[in-house]
């Protein structure tokens, strides 16, 4: 038997087989019980020819195994090729809900101030005029006190028109230093329109410590505004008037739509008004028993709605109370 010729014939038969059946035929032909090789192996007498024949058998067996693996891979590839999906079809429905956009803004603001070392303080919504007006240095004639502007429940009981009472509660309960924010619902008798709703949300901030300055307020507000509207934003402050702060200011952020060039949103000014702030008025400190010669502080109270509307290009505040899933799932 010409082993070399047999091996070479067998190897080419193996490599020529293109299906599992053909490969099996080749295997039987060259390695089967009746094959020339097996016959020769049975008849072998000397050690040397035995080794040669066994080596030939091993070579052919390996070639068969290798070819089988190849053919199986090819079969698998073919089979998988037929399991193609339209990978653009929608995924399996695993609908998650969404936080309301005001909650999202609330959390963001909370986190910004937590990062600066502030606490988040809870406040009540039904207050007394004592905490809403008197303690905040509001003159008896201040228009906010009018029942035309504020919801009175009964005598001295009111729905808070701003979050500021939580400043007073916190200062009454604690000694400086104080770094706190308080967020929640407020109520004013506003006629409903695109920018007014009788219920709205504010974030109140208060810092009281030795040596706090207007510059500290300015820096704090800039950090907040950049965190909310983009790190490249600029902040500016303009004079204003509030009974509970002196000096009082109004904060503006450079317009994030036109980058200060002037557009409809910033009314061509390049600046967007965000909200009021100021250095805590000494009268407020005296009210809670702090010494204005020892500590100074700053405070601000901003509307969360305004931030949400600006950031998402919402034209109408009423959209925030619409509660339609088609709108809610956009946030």
């Amino acid at each position, binding site marked *: 038997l010409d082993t070399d010729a047999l091996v070479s014939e067998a190897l080419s038969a193996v490599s020529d087989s293109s299906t599992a059946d053909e490969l099996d035929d080749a295997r039987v032909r060259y390695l089967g019980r009746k094959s020339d090789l097996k016959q020769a192996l049975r008849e072998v007498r000397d050690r040397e020819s035995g080794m040669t024949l066994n080596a030939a058998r091993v070579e052919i067996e390996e070639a068969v195994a290798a070819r089988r693996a190849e053919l199986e891979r090819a079969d698998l590839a073919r089979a998988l090729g037929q399991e193609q999906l339209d990978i653009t079809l929608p995924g399996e429905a695993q609908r998650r*809900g969404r936080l309301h956009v005001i909650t999202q803004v609330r959390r963001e603001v909370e986190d910004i101030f937590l990062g600066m070392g502030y606490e988040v303080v809870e406040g009540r919504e*039904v207050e007394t005029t004592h905490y809403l007006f008197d303690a905040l240095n509001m003159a008896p*004639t201040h228009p906010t006190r009018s029942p035309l502007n504020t919801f009175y429940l*009964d005598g*001295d009981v009111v729905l808070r028109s701003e979050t500021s009472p939580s400043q007073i509660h916190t200062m009454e309960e604690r000694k400086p230093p104080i770094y706190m924010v308080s967020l929640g619902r407020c109520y004013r008798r506003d006629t409903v329109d695109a920018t007014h709703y*009788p219920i709205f949300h504010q974030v109140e901030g208060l810092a009281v410590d030795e040596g706090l300055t*207007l510059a500290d307020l300015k820096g704090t507000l800039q950090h907040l505004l950049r965190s909310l509207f983009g790190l490249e934003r600029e902040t500016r402050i303009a*004079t204003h008037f509030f009974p509970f702060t002196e*000096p009082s200011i109004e904060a503006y952020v450079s317009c994030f739509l036109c980058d200060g060039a002037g557009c409809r949103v910033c009314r061509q000014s390049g600046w967007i008004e965000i909200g009021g702030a100021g250095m805590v008025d000494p009268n407020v400190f005296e009210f809670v028993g702090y010494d204005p010669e020892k500590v100074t502080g700053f405070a601000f109270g901003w509307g969360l709605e305004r931030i949400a509307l600006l950031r998402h290009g919402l034209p109408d505040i009423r959209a925030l109370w619409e*509660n339609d899933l088609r709108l809610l799932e956009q946030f």
Partner: protein
Amino acid sequence: LRLPVSWLREYVDVKASTEEIAARLAISTCEVERIIVQGVADEDGNLGLFRVGRVVEAGKHPNADRLQLCRVDVGEGEPRQIVCGAWNFGEGATVAVALPGAVLPDGHALAEVKLRGESSSGMILSERELDLGVDHSGILVLENGPEPGTPLVDVLPLSEQVLELETTPNRPDLLSIYGVAREVAAIFGGELRPMPGTEPDRIADEPVDIRIEDLERCPRYVGRTFRDVRIGPSPLWLKARLIAAGMRPISNVVDATNYVMLALGSPLHAFDQPRLAEGRIVVRRAHADEEIRTLDGVVRALTPDDLVIADAERPVAIAGVMGGEDSEVTEETTVVLLEAANFEPSGIQRTSERLGLRSEASGRWEKGVDPHLAEDAARLCSQLFAELSGAGWTGESDVSAELPGPAVIHLRPERTSELLGLEVEPDEQRRILEALGFEVSADWNVTAPTWRARDVTREVDLVEEVGRMKLDEVPFTLPARREMYGRLSHWQQHRRAVEDVLVGLGYFEVYTPSLVADDPDPNAYRIPQPQSQDMADLRTTLLPSLIEVARHNLDVGNEGIAVFEIAHVYRPTDEELPDERVHVAGIAQAPYARAKGAVEEILAAGRAVGTFTRSEHPLLHPGQTATTTGGILGGLRPGQLEGDWSAFELDLGALELGAGWTYEDVITYPPLKQDLAFAVPEEVLATDLVEAARAAVPELRSMEPFDVYRGEQVGEGRKSIAFRVEFRSPERTLTDEEAAGLREKIVAALRERFGAELRA
């Protein structure tokens, strides 16, 4: 406040452009809403299309009786043919002409047109068309005949920039051109001109009978009389300024009072003096039954809280708010009594609010006008009366309470720098304060000007005065932190966790009003005068609001609706304030199990242990309602919303918060699992079986129901509940024999308590 810029520049000398003035005022003084161009727009050569013209020929239009056909020289050599509807002029008249292409103040653009067959190449203009007056009865005839072709802007105040200012209530001084000019001078270091007004000659010394009965409400009353007053229209410059400032010109005398109010900020009133009974002025409270017909023609009932200006018999004006019709200046008036007074703000505010009557005057008085301004206002107005109406000043009386002296405040210049966080040199602080009218002594005792007396009383107020001129220079710093720790409380973390759990479960967060039409709790707080009937009650529960939201979403065709809300509710108490609780509520378009699953996850988020007991709720299905820790859940009672719904409402504060927890080793000795099903009477609850089993077998780690079967195999009135049961010992792996023993104990216990039969 509308502030014509040319008027402002009359009082202050600065080089700055209008835009620069607006920008700096906005930082240091008050909000500048916008810059408006009043009159003819000065854009693209538009102003050049308005010329002086001389009428060289005028006659009837051949095809129209009401029209004049004119030829007008506008300095071009060849006169233009212009058709005109007015007849108050003729050949030789000097007129104002707009040429084709010109855009008029109302936005109308002129074109070359044919009118009744004759071409018209321009327009002869009236006062009103130029925003210079309200007279539309004829065209504007220019006096002293300037040369034809002269740009109209050289002879008329055609175009005016106006700043629209939004001032704060502490600054009544800014409700005047002169007050703003003072700010501009301080900001730019420009020169503030002396206050306008020089006394005219006094032609007589007649007594003026003024009596103030309430010096608190009216601390000052300057009354001046004038005779030989000739009522007529105001000159164009004055009308133009009033219009630019947003007021309507009426007559020279009335216009003069308004002009002075705008210029100096102290409102004035002119009476037709002979129409005052006994020619007298008494400032007093109204009587209970008095009424007055005000200038707007409305009869108004007065109360004793209202301050009035009366004559010997009756009220002739509501002090500081509006004059009376009876005594108003008319075309026949020849003798005028000028009122330059001062009124206390809160009284004016009460009266004007009660009557729902606001005027330019009341808006100023409400903010507290400087009583010293009365004499300045009287002076400037007298000058205008004399110049505009030929009036002769015949008498004066100045009745006044003792006016409060100016406050003297000590300023530590270093305090300014400390509070601002910006070093401001003492000399600069002094310069700013003095420019604003403060007197600063060598040792820093600062006297506030009378027009700031209400607003500036303390050192910190002076710091603000300096600071507001420096706001752009204040640096951005952060507090030098000491003892600052930022963290959410457990409660706040828990609220966030609950929000996140519900969002993960597919619930969308909604915000609904805390004020509702009709809360189910009859003791709920009510708003005494609600803004609208659907916002009348302070709610004690969130569920009704969420049912509304669900209904709205159904109506608009949304599917798979699941919403939740976390908000305050307000429980009635015997105290002054309600008990405010934070509730979480949800509703979903799915049966009971959806709400149950949500509640279980909420409880798990707070590591709270919940039990569920059968219960009732008016909005929930009577057979599918449970109370649990802090609240209620159930299938929604049918008939409210189409389809199967379930809902829950929990008091977040009532959920027990597990403080922390320790892990359980379920790896070393894994639990042994078995499924067991028990047939029990229908009324037995799954939770009853679990509790009884747990009591019998401490090694029972969990026993979760996973299927309920009713049918022939268990018989009528019975059901089969299948449980997945896990036994586990913390000390070793249980053998199958041990597990079988535990199972037998459970079977025995349940058979005994509930007659439960083990199935399969």
